């Protein structure tokens, strides 16, 4: 099954030098993620989960240990090669959406494709439209972020993460800025992408509520994995959404 391993973390350590002190954010983290998994990484603040996320996202490199993304050892790569890897293999979803202001949804989704020189203008547009349709925003391509609700903005961000057909979607507190209903909507979309399209998702969160929707939870504390468990009863976000009391605003 090793060919199916999307992520391989072997004794990942990350230390920061702050003045004279050395902060050890990760003290040897090892786990694998297989294709098609929906993993949540949980931990309170200070547990090292942000540091881990940065390493998983190829934004940062471990001080020691090996990290293999889709079979490529990230530790040996240059800054430019890391950028290429991020472009081709990872789709980021952020807590604050990070959409470009005054820019249409379509252009926001197209953005990663601009850094991929192999695509023509038409391919770029078609793929961006496809990704928008996949997040059910095909009719909002001309809307700018200010014309979209928080949930819609996050869906545009998810479309942007999907557009380069990455091997993994890496979400960082992607529901942190959203209310419960919208959070569940986003999770329903994530589950759909995971179950129907087979997308591998790594979701960093500190909400146990959200973790219940994933198939596996990795718990971090003080820079170490303290629990790595399969979730036997994955909660369906769609059902959870249906169970919510009807919104009063409507």
């Amino acid at each position, binding site marked *: 099954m090793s060919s199916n391993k999307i992520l391989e973390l072997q004794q990942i350590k990350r230390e920061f030098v702050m003045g004279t002190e050395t902060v050890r954010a990760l003290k040897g983290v090892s786990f694998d993620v297989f294709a098609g998994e929906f993993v949540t990484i949980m931990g309170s603040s200070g547990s090292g989960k942000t540091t881990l996320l*940065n390493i998983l996202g190829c*934004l940062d490199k471990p001080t020691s240990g090996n990290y293999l993304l889709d079979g490529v050892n990230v530790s040996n790569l240059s800054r430019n090669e890391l950028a290429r890897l*991020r472009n081709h293999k990872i789709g980021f979803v952020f807590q*604050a959406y990070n959409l470009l202001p005054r820019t249409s949804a379509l*252009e926001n989704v197209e953005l990663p494709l601009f850094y*991929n020189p192999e695509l023509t203008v038409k391919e770029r547009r078609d793929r961006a439209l496809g990704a928008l349709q996949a997040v059910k925003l095909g009719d909002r391509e001309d809307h700018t972020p200010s014309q979209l609700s928080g949930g819609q903005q996050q869906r545009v961000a998810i479309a942007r993460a999907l557009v380069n057909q990455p091997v993994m979607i890496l979400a960082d507190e992607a529901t942190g800025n959203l209310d419960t209903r919208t959070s569940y909507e986003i999770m329903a979309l994530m589950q759909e992408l995971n179950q129907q399209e087979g997308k591998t998702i790594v979701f960093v969160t500190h909400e146990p509520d959200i973790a219940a929707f994933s198939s596996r939870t990795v718990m971090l504390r003080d820079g170490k994995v303290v629990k790595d468990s399969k979730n036997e009863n994955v909660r369906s976000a769609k059902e959870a959404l249906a169970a919510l009391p009807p919104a009063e605003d409507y």
Partner: protein
Amino acid sequence: MSAINLIMIALKALQRNKLRAFLTMLGIIIGVAAVIAMVAIGQGSKESIQSQLSSMGSNMITILPSSNVAGGVRIGGESFQSLTIVDVQAIQRNAEYVSAVSPVASTKGQAIYGALNWPTSLQGVAPSYFDIRKLTILDGVSFSDADVATAAKVCVLGQTVIKNLFPSGESPVGKVIRLGSIPLQVIGTLEAKGQSSFGQDQDDIILTPYTTVQKRILATIYFQSIYASAISEGASEKATNEIIDILRTTHRLRPADENNFQVRTMEELIKTLSSTTSLLTILLTAIAGISLVIGGIGIMNIMYVSVTERTREIGLRMSIGARGIDILLQFLVEAIIISVTGGIIGVILGVTSAKVITLTLGWPTLVSESSIILSFVVCAFTGVFFGYYPAQAASRLDPIEALRYE
């Protein structure tokens, strides 16, 4: 990343902040327009001074007699008589850099027509004198070499003389005037030339073949002066040297003897005037150049602010696969687009305002291609130079920190 993608990214980024892009551009627009308009004014006035000078005959060379040494005593001066037809013919034959030469035998006298008379100067010249002095025949004809050969009693009148002898406005051509006791038939009139740069009325003149003056009035073989034209303004110096050599030969001067004639050109005057106007151009350009630099600093300032303001955007771009060089090039291309677009608008505005200045104020302007090219190159360079540091700052951001920047 391909160049087209790069330009599209930069254009879209600028599009998101049109007003700011335009305001940044404004500095460059004003700078470039100012450079072009200022240089146009400077060049225009230089050109107009030069054309005035050449209408006076800027390649004109004057040969005057000078002192002679007789037994250690220097005698004579400008009244010294040393120039003869031999000198004129020698210059005509031998000087390569001289295009025309004419002797001048002049005298003063009372011109009389009917009941009217007027004191004026009579100048005996060769037909080539008209070319040398840039004189134009307004009415009638000029005299010919045949008239010179026969010492014909014909003359061409200047406008001041005409005004005083023919006040009623009748055409003087064909009439016979008298100069002292010599009757002269008027065969032509000269176009008005106005005052010379020395305050002399250039129209108070009667021109006649030099032989007429020499044989019929003065009874001399000498000339007061010889006028010549160098083949071009630049050849003045060479022509001067040639003339000196030729005249030393015809005057049979030994190497130790000093010249008994002097050769003068307009070159000094031209040099002084053009150095004044060059200074004016440099001054105006410098002032305009400063505004261009300020425009460039404006670009740098805005780009720096923009890098700070767009830190999250930069972080995002890096997280979705932009390399440092992609970010650097994006910001650089943004700066270049601003400066080049500003440059193009500035060129148009500068050329237009030069035209408007000419039309409204009547100042001569000359838009030179070199000033357009120069200011355009300078502003593109400004874009690269002032855009580079902010771009580099952007490209060196740590994506992790940039993403979390508040």
